[in-house]
């Protein structure tokens, strides 16, 4: 897992790469990465590398980060192709949505099927 920043004309862009185990055991580490990225950047892209395991805690954290970003008037999105494991977890955990929640002011909910 790592985090990189670069300056763009529109503001600072942060890229977080998540890989390996993304379960409750790693939730604390992921949370810290997300907080750091949202403090330092105006726009955060989360990219998935080689994910070996994932559980509901990862989805909760991303949801929490997205809500936080909205409140901070920043953007957080999931970039690139989703790994199969992410697709499967989102589907099985019933996270797929037709519309975003009340906090999704930018209409950029992570779980709407596009």
């Amino acid at each position, binding site marked *: 897992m790592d985090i990189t920043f670069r300056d763009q004309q529109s503001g600072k862009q942060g890229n977080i790469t998540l890989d390996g185990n993304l379960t409750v055991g790693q939730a604390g580490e992921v949370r810290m990465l997300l907080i750091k990225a949202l403090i330092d950047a105006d726009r955060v892209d989360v990219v998935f590398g080689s994910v070996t395991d994932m559980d509901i*805690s990862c989805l909760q954290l991303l*949801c929490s980060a997205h809500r936080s970003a909205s409140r901070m008037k920043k953007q957080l999105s999931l970039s690139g192709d989703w790994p199969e494991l992410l697709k499967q977890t989102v589907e099985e955990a019933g996270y797929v949505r037709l519309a975003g929640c009340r906090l999704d002011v930018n209409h950029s909910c992570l779980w709407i099927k596009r």
Partner: protein
Amino acid sequence: MEDIIGKLRETFKEEAYELLAELEAGLLVLENNPGDMEQVGRVFRAMHTIKGSGATCEFQGISNFTHELETAFDLVRKGKLLVTKELLDVTLAARDHIESLFDVYYRDGMADENMASDIIATLKKLLPSAAATRSLSSGMSAKTGQKEQKSNLRQITYRIRFRPSKGIFSSGTNPVLLLRELRRLGTCRVLAQTEAIPYLEDYEADDCYTFWDAILTTNRGRNAIEDIFIFAKDMSELAIEVIDEEGGLDDEASYKRLGEILLDRGDLTPKDLQKALQSKKKVGETLVENGIVSCDKVESALAEQQHVREMRERRHGAEPTSSIRVATDRLDTLVNLVGELVTVQARLSQTALTRGIPEFLSIAEEVERLTVLLRDKTMNIRMLPIGTTFSKFKRAVRDLSAELGKEIELTTEGAETELDKTVIERLSDPLVHLIRNSMDHGIETPEVREASGKPRRGTIHLSAVHSGAHVLIQIKDDGAGLDTQAIRAKAVEKGLVAPDATPSDKELFRLILMPDFSTAKNVTSMSGRGVGLDVVKKAIDALRGSIEITSIRGAGAMITLKLPLTLAIIDGFLTKIGAEHFIFPLASVEECIELKRNSAKSNGRHLVNVRGHMVPYIRLREQFTINGATPAIEQIVIVGEEGHRVGFTVDNVIGQHQTVLKSLGKFYREVEGISGATILGDGTVALILDLPKLISIAEQEENAFARSGGKAFEQATADVP
């Protein structure tokens, strides 16, 4: 009460025999492919319905007996019993016994009372011992079994809310795995409720902030659901409610409104709902916008609404409401009435034409259009797939090949081909005759076949295909073929053919359709008595059909039956000779040409040159000895029959005519060349021409002429494409 049972039994009659046919068909497929679980299911379902409906109609003996069979096939379904020849033999025998039990009530038949116990004893021997003692007993267990089956098959929809405690992760429980298990119970929708997920600064890494709503439709009970969550029981709340049930009182295709669902779930108070209903916006939007209900909860309620609606629609669709059973005599009455309507409509059209009032003409045209539509729709109602007859033959071939010591397989094609119900009913016996004939005389014994380089197992291929307004049914075997020498010798012996004559194969094959004509040296239980093929011919003639036989010695024979699609109303081609009207079946008519008096004869023969081809024609005026002067220009109606083009001269052609077929009275039944009559718009009678017969009469006359030196007709009919 007795009256109700009587009505129930009458309603069940057709279905009972259909189920037996279905059962038989499934068993015969299983014989060739014992591992086909789809067929095992088919057999089981047929037995289950016979048992259930039998019990409803108070055929208790049939129900109990069928239960024993069902028990055996339940073991097959569960993989505890193999499909063997012995099992199929005893099940087929049991099926026949059930039929005889139905026959006792429906057809005044007889049933062997000891047969049931013999069959059950045989069946018992084939079962694993525990199952045999447990299941094959009396009606009491049958009833219990039925009740269990019913409750197992009933679909129930549950609303489930699973709310784990925050600390569930620390116990090592993964909620996603529990939801995966839940999905396996049936059709399931899961929606995560995420409203409690906090912002990152308040987020505790080990906490679970999500809870779940699930809608599950399953035939499993509440316990099965509770079992999944049993290890999470102490760390979660689980609410399970039945929201829809098969056979429940509230079984409308629609379902509750969104507000009602949210109220049911406790996610909304009646007061808030009232407020939301006052808004002009949709209830869901108002509730979310005002922060009364979370978006997730609305989405979950909508998912429930959609799920239950879909389940109810599927259930309603699965119920046999899309078709109803109607007694055949009611259909016949309907067809007769449509026939009358067609006749009256023709009269209306003619009157309108005579009066020449535009408004009247327009109404008459509209009535004609609607009548044609009504006619076609009514005729379609009577159409049935011929496959229902095919399955009967498979069983006959199976049983008779064993009796003959031959190995014969019946293959079929075109079972979905539709024919008028009456035609199918009257076709069954002729087809049995032809198949039996092929089995007895056509297919050789396995030893003879092997010696001549053929596979031991002979094949009879039964096929049906549409061809214009006809259906062609072919019975083709890979047996020895017809022995033309033997047929010729028999024909000479019977004085049907002169000793020095050289009839064609086609002519010889036609002789075997004559009464009392058999070349078989041995008479078997099936054929060889010279009775059969003439009966087949009579039956096919009565259906206004024709028979064609082809054969190659050593390779096999093929009999083709050409049958009209319907016997009630046809499209005809109306013509006139003198004052008489004649109708050609329109499907046979290819073209019409003029015949001038000076070109009417060619070397004394009736031949006309059509675009370079000589076409023979038959003078109907002469054929039916109609008096009066022939017009200077006659019309030749050229028809295509049995691969030949033949013309028929008439005075005038009038045009297409919807023809309601009426049979001729018994005095006229023997008139050759006429197959029936119809009533025209002005009330006069038009005769319907039997074209194959007319051609056959002309050929016979021609052959007589040829034997006396000429052979123009035969050449012409053979050469013209």
